[in-house]
């Protein structure tokens, strides 16, 4: 009789307990996940749209609603790329992916009609080292591509003068180089995607 009781206490009860706890934990997390899922998806979409707007150099109110409004008003989706038209002419925004130090860097590059001059660059996703390579997301880095044309050369941070020079990120040389390679490929990629050349 006592052997059975110990068996229950030693083997069955822990198993039951574990099972019950796991069940409740998963229930709680699944519940919260489902409750916020739509919102998370909307954020994801908003993020991509924001990248397109940034690359095109369009200003917008930085809220989900503001981004949606600006996007729907100005951006047209084409086969594999985006276009915007406005007082400053037609602009083309292409998605581009390439290797970074750790994984893939995914960006949106905006071009003027000549498909050479950059109107902006926006990072969609990157996995570079936080605090170092990840700084390619910071505005000071992406903004410096605006109005310039490839091929770009990297110079020490803070010393870019010529129109094809861009500041590298101190301490993130490799990532900066990978990014520069990506940017240099952008014009050719744009011609390929937009004009089928």
């Amino acid at each position, binding site marked *: 009789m006592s052997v059975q009781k110990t068996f229950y206490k030693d083997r069955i009860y822990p198993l039951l307990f574990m099972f019950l706890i796991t069940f409740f934990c998963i229930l709680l997390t699944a519940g919260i996940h489902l409750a916020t899922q739509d919102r998370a998806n909307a954020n994801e979409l908003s993020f991509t749209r924001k990248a397109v707007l940034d690359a095109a150099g369009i200003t917008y109110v930085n809220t989900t609603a503001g981004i949606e409004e600006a996007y729907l008003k100005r951006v047209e989706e084409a086969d594999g790329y985006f276009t915007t038209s406005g007082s400053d002419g037609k602009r083309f925004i292409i998605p581009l992916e390439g290797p970074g130090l*750790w994984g893939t860097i995914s960006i949106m590059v905006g071009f003027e009609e000549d498909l050479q001059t950059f109107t902006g660059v926006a990072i969609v996703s990157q996995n570079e080292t936080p605090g170092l390579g990840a700084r390619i997301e910071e505005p000071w880095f992406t903004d410096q591509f605006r109005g310039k044309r490839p091929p770009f050369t990297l110079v020490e941070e803070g010393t870019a003068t010529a129109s094809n020079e861009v500041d590298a990120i101190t301490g993130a*040389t490799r990532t900066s180089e990978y990014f520069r390679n990506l940017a240099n490929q952008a014009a050719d990629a744009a011609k390929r995607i937009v004009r089928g050349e």
Partner: protein
Amino acid sequence: MHDALLPLSVFFASIFTSNILLTNYLGTCSFLSVSKEMKTSLGLGVAVIFVMATTTPLNWLVYEYLLLPFGLEYLRFIVFIIVIAAFVQLTEMAIERYSEPLYQSLGIFLPLITVNCAILGVSLFMVIREYSFFTSFVFGLGSGIGWFVAIIAMAGIRVKLKNAKVVPALEGPGITLIIAGFMAMAFMGFSGMIAVS
């Protein structure tokens, strides 16, 4: 071209330029306390290599074939840690049964590893960077070796430190952290080493 070389660059990067401990700060707790002695550092280091190299691809399989198909990615934290804990527990039992000397030199460190943030961290990074199965194995192996190198180097330095005079308030964790800082700086110097075009 790049894809084939990714495992190689990830391997070297995880040991040198983006060392899991010196660059990503993972696994510092046990690093600070265990590195006092060379012998224990060796044991723990090897155990870390073993666990990281095995649990990372294991978690990849779980993520790819269990979590993704059912849309349960958000549960990965719980699932990964269960996988790691279960694996470590099984390994410890196996070693204890089959090899007493191995157990004495390695097995006793295994429970300590379950809560080592580096192990879980490597699996989480692997998911974020979307590595393939082979690359995740390489990443786990490389990260483990990187952690091993860091703790061995630290233990070696601390042995020498026993004969040096340290400011009392810095004794123990303080001076270890400063040494870690210098090691991190030294490792940053590796970043020019690999040229993968």
